[in-house]
């Protein structure tokens, strides 16, 4: 290697970046090269000189105040957290599906063929409506297995839609003398018996 290469290693040694395998060759070279020793001592002397010439001035207090004001107002922790945002979006989506579901059920064609318009969308809309009713109905608190009941909702929705499309009134034992509209909002026990009865009927 030439002296210019070693001078680069002198600079890298000063900044603590010299590769470990170059340390020993540099030390050996410095021991025998007065030119590189002079370069090293000049670099050190310039560092000392520059340290003495360093200005001790600071930015104005006004600037420091502005920076800290920006740090306060633009703090990243003050952004709306994602989970809260996610919950809000979920609530909006649930509300929208409830409205659409209600509208869809309310405007469906009466006396249609039992299977003609029994699309997945109708079943999903009806399920949403039932789920929303369950959430608001105080009787839902009495459910023994909420998860299972929720899982049964599409099946229940399908059966209700078939009954409604056929203009078949629910069996009297399910309505307890209530009007047909009230029968769509049964209690938990009524839902279960509806499900069981319809399953037997279809079975």
């Amino acid at each position, binding site marked *: 290697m030439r002296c210019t290469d070693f001078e680069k290693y002198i*600079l890298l040694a000063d*900044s603590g970046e010299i590769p470990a395998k170059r340390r020993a060759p540099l030390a050996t070279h410095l021991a025998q090269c007065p030119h590189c020793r002079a370069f090293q*001592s000049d670099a050190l002397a310039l560092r000392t000189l520059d340290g003495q010439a360093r*200005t*001790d001035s600071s930015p104005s207090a006004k*600037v420091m105040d502005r*920076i800290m004001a920006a740090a*306060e107002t633009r703090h990243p922790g003050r952004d709306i957290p994602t989970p809260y945002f996610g919950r809000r979006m979920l609530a909006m989506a649930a509300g929208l599906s409830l409205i659409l579901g209600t509208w869809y059920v309310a405007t469906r064609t009466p006396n249609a063929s039992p299977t003609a318009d029994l699309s997945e969308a109708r079943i999903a809309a009806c399920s949403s409506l039932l789920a929303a009713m369950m959430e608001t109905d105080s009787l839902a608190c009495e459910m023994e297995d909420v998860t299972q009941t929720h899982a049964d909702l599409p099946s229940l929705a399908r059966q209700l839609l078939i009954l409604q499309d056929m203009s078949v009134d629910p069996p009297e034992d399910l309505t307890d003398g209530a009007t047909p509209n009230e029968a769509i909002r049964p209690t938990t026990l009524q839902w279960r018996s509806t499900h069981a009865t319809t399953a037997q009927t279809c079975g």
Partner: protein
Amino acid sequence: MEDSDEDLLDRYKAGDTGALALLVERYRRQLFSFILRLSISPSDADEVFQEVWLRVIRKIDSYRRDSFRGWVYRITHNLAIDHIRLRQKTVSLDVPGGGHGGIWMESLPGHERSPAAALRGRELEGRIRAAVAQLPLEQREVFLLRMEGDVPFHEIARVQRVSINTALARMHYALGKLRTLLHEDRQNIES
């Protein structure tokens, strides 16, 4: 044990504004001195210094946890260079003697030294500043990043978007010129 720059930044991200205050204080003198010695006037240096920290605050989410020192000097470099280019339309910055820099540097408040030491220091400051101001901008910046900011060469290379060999070569040229220009002062130091 003192918190690292990266720890302070994490604390600020977590909501501790005081951590950023500590970080600003840690870099206050060296960053401001670096900006000033790139031949930017004190009032403009105030502006650049403020913009550096506002940018740190704005870009904090894009900061990857490597070297904060390198990152903050990269931001400072970009803003200072933009500022210098803007100013170059009316003022030549590489004029020997530092152009407008020599005048305003004289008015900067000295550190707490004895009057004689302050005078000597001020004279020395003037000579070194004049010598550094004669360096081409790229070499001057490498010299100041290394001497003022204690920025390692691999970070200097990233700041200037050059290879580490180019950064080392620029430092080599800068030292060679300063050796000649400051020959007398160097001999005083050695004696």
